[in-house]
């Protein structure tokens, strides 16, 4: 259980902390405090990102439509507009329609928010900066993100309104079908990485941008765009926002909601936008690396322990990771900006067009990309006698499989030979 929390930095910091009259903290206490700090930080990120994105959405929408967008609240650029909105929403009456299934109606927004927040638990922000580092990280995050639809369906069903029910049904149909190409597109870089651990995938893209998985081969390059399209649909953003199509369904699944419960759906939506963009950054765009190899210059900083104030705390690693986290968040925000830009540029599709796009185009495209990504190394191996275009370190997957087999000691070393042969 202790291994679940990769709270290296915080645990280090806390266990090195010598509190006067109290002495060093016990390991269990350190673990609990570190877990608490992680939770608080994640909840803050989870809450502040939507705050910023909603402002960005209004501003970008305004500019695209040749308006100014919010200008007054908070002085310049109206940057406190979302806060004003939030205060307004808190003051609104929390009401449920008489026809609603009251209990589910009240619980549905929490389901959406919790599942959206859960995705942040396995999302790394920098090398080792992740609340829970799992070997099945990508699989877990896809599973968690697929739960958000439950909150939406419950909201639509329990509202006792036909608009809400239509929205929920569209959402359910859309989600169930878009999960397939999303998983297939995410598999394409995973085939090259050979691991489902976000940390390992991020680390193998260190160095220049040519090491990013998007530039690995033509299939990953197309897969990035396919993934981004599917991800936009899976967080129900325009042009795929059929669940809340204002022009036909009033407001879709959240027609009957008001006040804070209504805002929870939007918190979940904007946080999910960040989460899917974060996955795209980690799987295709080099994770927390800048792509111009500034990290090489900072490599010496890693492991630097000034032992000032707190003993045993590697301040250098912390600073490097902080820089990485900023790069990661900036990249993810750039992708979120593209999502906003697309929303205010493209018209909404019809529901049958949404389903056709997924089942007739995106699923076959992602299947072809997946097959191509598998065959590409074989093609290169037979022509260039190596599995990547550029001279690179061997793919991580092969190294790790080799390690895992070799670690089992001499008694089982024979069994490792088929793997090595298969890989070579």
């Amino acid at each position, binding site marked *: 259980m202790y*291994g679940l929390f990769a709270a290296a930095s915080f645990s280090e910091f806390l266990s090195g902390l010598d509190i006067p009259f109290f002495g060093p903290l016990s390991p269990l206490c350190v673990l609990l405090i570190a877990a608490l700090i992680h939770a608080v930080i994640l909840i803050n990120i989870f809450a502040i990102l939507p705050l910023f994105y909603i402002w960005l959405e209004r501003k970008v929408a305004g500019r695209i439509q040749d308006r100014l967008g919010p200008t007054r609240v908070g002085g310049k650029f109206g940057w406190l507009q979302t806060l004003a909105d939030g205060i307004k929403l808190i003051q609104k009456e929390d009401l449920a329609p008489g026809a609603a299934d009251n209990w589910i109606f009240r619980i549905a927004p929490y389901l959406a928010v919790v599942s959206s927040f859960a995705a942040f638990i396995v999302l790394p922000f920098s090398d080792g900066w992740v609340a829970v580092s799992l*070997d099945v990280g990508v*699989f877990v995050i896809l599973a968690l993100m697929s739960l958000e639809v*439950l909150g939406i*369906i*419950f909201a639509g069903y*329990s509202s006792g309104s036909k608009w809400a029910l239509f929205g929920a049904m569209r959402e359910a149909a859309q989600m169930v079908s878009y999960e397939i190409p999303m998983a297939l597109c995410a598999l394409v870089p995973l085939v090259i990485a050979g691991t489902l651990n976000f940390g390992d995938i991020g680390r193998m893209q260190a160095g220049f941008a040519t090491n990013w998985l998007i530039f690995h081969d033509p299939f990953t390059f197309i897969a990035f765009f396919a993934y981004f399209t599917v991800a936009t649909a899976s967080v129900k953003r325009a042009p795929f926002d059929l669940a809340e199509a204002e022009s036909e369904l009033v407001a879709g699944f959240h027609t009957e909601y008001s006040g804070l419960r209504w805002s929870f759906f939007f918190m979940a939506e904007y946080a999910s936008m960040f989460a899917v963009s974060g996955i795209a950054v980690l799987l295709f765009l080099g994770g927390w690396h800048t792509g111009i190899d500034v990290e090489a210059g900072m490599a010496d900083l890693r492991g630097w322990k000034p032992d000032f104030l707190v003993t045993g705390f590697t301040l250098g690693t912390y600073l490097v990771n902080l820089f990485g986290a900023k790069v990661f968040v900036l990249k993810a925000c750039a992708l979120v900006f593209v999502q906003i830009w697309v929303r205010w540029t493209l018209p909404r599709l019809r529901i049958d067009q949404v389903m056709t796009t997924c089942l007739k185009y995106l699923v076959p495209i992602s299947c072809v990309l997946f097959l191509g990504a598998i065959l590409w190394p074989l093609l290169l191996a037979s022509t260039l006698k190596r599995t990547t275009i550029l001279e690179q370190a061997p793919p991580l997957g092969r190294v790790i499989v080799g390690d895992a*087999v070799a670690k089992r000691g001499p*008694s089982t070393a024979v*069994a490792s030979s088929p793997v090595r042969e298969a890989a070579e």
Partner: protein
Amino acid sequence: MTTDVLFWLFAALVCGGALGVVITQNVVRMAFWLILSLGSVSALFFLLGADFLGAAQLLIYVGGTVVLLVFGVMLTASGPYLQIKTSAADGLLGAGVGGLLLLVLISTVYGLDWSALHPTPAVSMIAERPEGNTIRPLGLAFLGLRPDRPVTEDGKSAPGYLLPFEIVSVHLLVVLVGAAYLARAKRRAEPSRDSFSA
């Protein structure tokens, strides 16, 4: 200690959710209790170090089956909130079968000498890694390699699950093709070709 507390918490949630499914009469509320129960089962899997199984439980049961269930209810329900009423006889029958199953499980758990089960290599391999990380051994086992098993005397690895894996995947493909065939849009009868050939 943390693990124990979490175990009891999630175990209570599993049982409470399951009870909720049985007691509630509103189908969609049942689905909510089912989510709670199945989600807590996946939390128990994570707690026991079976991370892949836990994620699969979330993806397949919570994210797939329950969504399909609610989707089906929404498409087929004639009234606004579908109720299921169980008759007293059905309730008694269900309670009887459930009680018998519980009896079998309890008698098995208490009848077994657990101390005699020395940890197998697979168990000790997982115990070495407290965070679970079972996916690599699982993947290798599907490719026909068992890193958790000792090598036999003639230098061969223990057989993995390559053949069952292939059979299951082909089976799944057949099911998918069949589903697509059954669900495809029916074409209208083509006009007869006679007029063209004539």
